[in-house]
């Protein structure tokens, strides 16, 4: 690949979802020359798909709510192996981040007295999700996107980053290419913020779009940073199951937050059979009590449909396996018999439209068919809880690509607040770090040359495997062997298969040229996908217990001893993944007290 243009910035943000946009805004406000690089057009990132809301203890609906309860709910939802410092910062700062969006033009749904309305959600003790109908993500992305443009931040759309460039140890920039022209781009930057989101495209049934191929996790891994908690992959309990082409598309938890119930083929509200001991004291025992809770939270306990996502996903999985599923292999989610058609259309407009247009189902009249769908990655790049810095100087990460806040399972609504809180912090600290350097460190031209040649290789192979077919094989493997319920034998089989796919990736071929060529792009994405898949399978094999979203059939119980460590994956000298157990820092007494008392 011949010449390239060099662009100079203080801070380069990779990804333009909520975390990337928020980081870029913060960096620009700190005075850093800032650019955003994103794989799609601006405003199309997966944050747009977020439906239910953003969790923040604003206490506009339930006045008892405060950051301590939010902290407690997040830690309990994450089965106590979250980074407690992140969980504390998140709970404390989320309300300010939501109010700030309002200053920038976001318009949330309102309470009767004109304040921000909050809705109940799984695992949150109080009504805590600020929302805009069921289109919260769209509002959030538009608001941030317009704010970023108004600050004059440069945006490189439809551009991929394929390498972090370093001097001997620090970040010196990044190498990428324009997807629409194939043009090679070199960024000289003092700091890079990774905000590339998730890894959904490792799996066959997922709510994620084509973009989520683990790019940021792999870039960090290759650059020498650490990945952590990779065994914790969230399967959202309710994805569409029919028709086949939309299998996996998300059905918001807000359906249950607004009163929707899960039923099996016998019409039973089966979640009452799946209440874990851990949540028994705070969960309703009868449908009558559960129904009263929506209007009187003080004297009743929460419906079991609003248990954390890992619990609900496993329950649905078990019902389907026991032969009590719906015709298309899901269970029923019923809002029609619980709310009036007018309320449903007002509260869940995009769900109404989605089912009407794609599945010929009128959700005001009949139940939806739903089943688990791979939705979110709790694991990711290990970061400092205060600064979002990785172990590589100058490299920062925020949002889904980072890890720590959610532990073994993320609560609904905590993702949008995560990306606002830690997106901002990543931007601020990246900018301060950049501002402290007189000039960008230098990288070697050879490194650029080698990476550029590697990039173009699939186009030069006369024949070879179809990259889409290889991705499909990986997805099949991860879905069947590293899914909701795992066993040691299957995980070993998956690792074996991943090795095989890694070898075959070296022989994939892409037809056509460098101009907007999805086959070539897919060939490039196979690298990151396989890094992530291997890290997930390795970590899942190592954690010999069931905790949160990680369920082992051969180790079905939670083991209190294994709460003492997180699993960390990093590259060894040959670039192969190596695992280690990272002991967890002791929680201060005052936080322990919150967990016990609140």
């Amino acid at each position, binding site marked *: 690949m011949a010449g390239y243009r060099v662009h100079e910035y203080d801070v380069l943000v990779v990804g333009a979802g909520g975390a990337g946009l928020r980081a870029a805004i913060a960096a620009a406000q700190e005075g850093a020359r800032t650019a955003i690089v994103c794989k*799609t*057009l*601006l405003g*199309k990132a*997966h944050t*747009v*798909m977020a439906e239910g809301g953003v969790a923040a203890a604003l206490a506009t609906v339930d006045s008892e709510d405060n950051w301590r309860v939010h902290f407690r709910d997040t830690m309990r939802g994450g089965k106590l192996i979250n980074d407690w410092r992140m969980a504390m910062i998140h709970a404390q700062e989320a309300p300010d981040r939501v109010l700030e969006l*309002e*200053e*920038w*033009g976001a*318009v949330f*749904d*309102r309470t*009767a*007295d*004109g*304040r921000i309305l909050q809705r109940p959600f799984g695992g949150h003790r109080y009504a805590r999700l600020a929302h*805009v109908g069921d*289109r919260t993500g*769209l*509002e959030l992305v*538009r608001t941030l996107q*317009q*704010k970023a*443009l*108004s600050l*004059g931040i440069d945006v490189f*759309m439809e551009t991929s980053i394929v390498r972090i460039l370093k001097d001997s140890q620090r970040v010196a920039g990044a190498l990428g290419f324009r997807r*629409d022209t194939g043009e090679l781009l070199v960024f000289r930057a003092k700091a890079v913020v990774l905000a590339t989101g998730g890894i959904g495209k490792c799996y066959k049934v997922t709510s994620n*779009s*084509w*973009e989520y191929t683990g790019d940021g996790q792999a870039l960090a891994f290759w650059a020498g940073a650490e990945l952590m908690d990779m065994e914790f992959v969230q399967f959202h309990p309710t994805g569409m199951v*029919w*028709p*086949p*082409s*939309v299998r996996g*598309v*998300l059905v918001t938890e807000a359906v249950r937050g607004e009163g929707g119930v899960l039923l099996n083929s016998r019409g039973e509200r089966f979640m009452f059979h799946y209440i874990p001991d851990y949540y028994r004291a705070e969960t309703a025992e009868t449908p009558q009590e559960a129904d009263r809770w929506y209007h009187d939270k003080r004297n009743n306990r929460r419906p079991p449909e609003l248990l954390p996502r890992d619990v609900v996903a496993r329950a649905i999985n078990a019902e389907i396996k026991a032969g009590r599923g719906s015709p298309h292999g899901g269970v029923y989610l019923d809002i029609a018999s619980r709310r009036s058609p007018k309320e449903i259309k007002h509260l869940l407009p*995009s769900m109404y*439209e*989605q089912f009407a*247009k*794609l*599945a010929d189902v009128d959700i005001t009249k009949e139940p939806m068919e739903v089943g688990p769908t791979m939705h979110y990655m709790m694991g990711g790049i290990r970061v400092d809880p205060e600064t979002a810095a990785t172990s590589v100087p100058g490299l920062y990460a925020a949002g889904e690509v980072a890890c720590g806040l959610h532990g073994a399972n993320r609560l609904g609504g905590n993702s949008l607040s995560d990306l606002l809180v830690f997106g901002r912090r990543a931007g601020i600290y990246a900018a301060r770090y950049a501002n402290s350097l007189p000039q960008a460190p230098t990288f070697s031209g050879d490194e650029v040359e080698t990476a550029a040649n590697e990039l173009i290789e699939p186009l030069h192979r006369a024949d070879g495997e*179809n990259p*889409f077919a290889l991705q*499909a094989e990986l997805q099949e493997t991860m879905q069947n062997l590293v899914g909701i319920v795992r066993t040691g034998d299957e995980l070993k089989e998956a690792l074996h298969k991943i090795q095989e796919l890694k070898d075959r990736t070296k022989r994939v071929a*892409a*037809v*056509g*040229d460098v*101009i*907007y*060529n*999805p*086959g*070539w792009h*897919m060939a490039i994405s196979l690298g990151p996908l396989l890094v992530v898949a291997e890290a997930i399978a390795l970590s899942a094999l190592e954690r010999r217990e069931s905790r949160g979203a990680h369920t082992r059939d051969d180790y079905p119980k939670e083991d209190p001893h294994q709460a003492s460590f997180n699993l960390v994956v990093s590259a060894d000298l040959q670039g192969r993944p190596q695992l280690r157990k990272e002991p967890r820092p002791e929680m201060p007494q005052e936080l322990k007290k919150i967990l016990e008392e609140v």
Partner: protein
Amino acid sequence: MALRTIRIFRGTAGNGTFVDYQVEVEEGNVVLDAVLKVQAQLAPDLAVRWNCKAGKCGSCSAEINGLPRLMCMTRMTLFPPDRPVTIAPLKAFPLIKDLVTDVSINYHIARQIPPLRLRPPGPDGIRRMTMDDIERAREFRQCIECFLCQNVCHVLRDHPENWALFFGPRWMVRLAELEMHPLDDDDRRNFLKEKAGVGYCNITKCCTEVCPAEIRITDNAIIPLKERVADLHYDPFRWLLDRLRGKRPIPRPEERVEKAAAS
């Protein structure tokens, strides 16, 4: 399962043609499914933009059998099974390749719109709005930026030179969203007239017809904006007052076009 013919435009600007592909179409499939099947099985270099596959991101706009639509929300059953389904890129934007066009002009326009200016909050620091207050602008906030409205607006589609003079329907919706924000404190009337060119819209409602978010663009966004501008510039009393004060009347849109053409 049934074998269907998908006729897709392949190529770059000035160098392209329609190519027929045959793929198996399943029950419930949308046009995007068929296109992605072609890409995965028959033409890996087929360029197409898409993301959410649920009508929420507005990436997969195309002209399907001549109708501008989202591919992900258009069911294959909409078309007669024995005839090819023809898919072409958006016509109003420069072609990059196959079904992908260069829509970057929209982002340049977005940068020209000044951000919201809110009036100060109440004494308790809380910004109070009621559901009734926000209802009017809520519609505009559902825009998914698919740019189908920009594509069919004949002010732009038939006269590309007008891109310099008229922001187009999407950005009228954005401006309406700002204007109708309950706490908005700005006066955009001059901007609407001079920069955004609201006068160019001649209310043919093509934009409204294609909007997948069902925003009543013309009736609810553009006409109210035109009225606001008219209140400022074409109010007869104001006109008289300006004349009496010796101010010159501001030229009308038609005159600006002539000027632009002359220069």
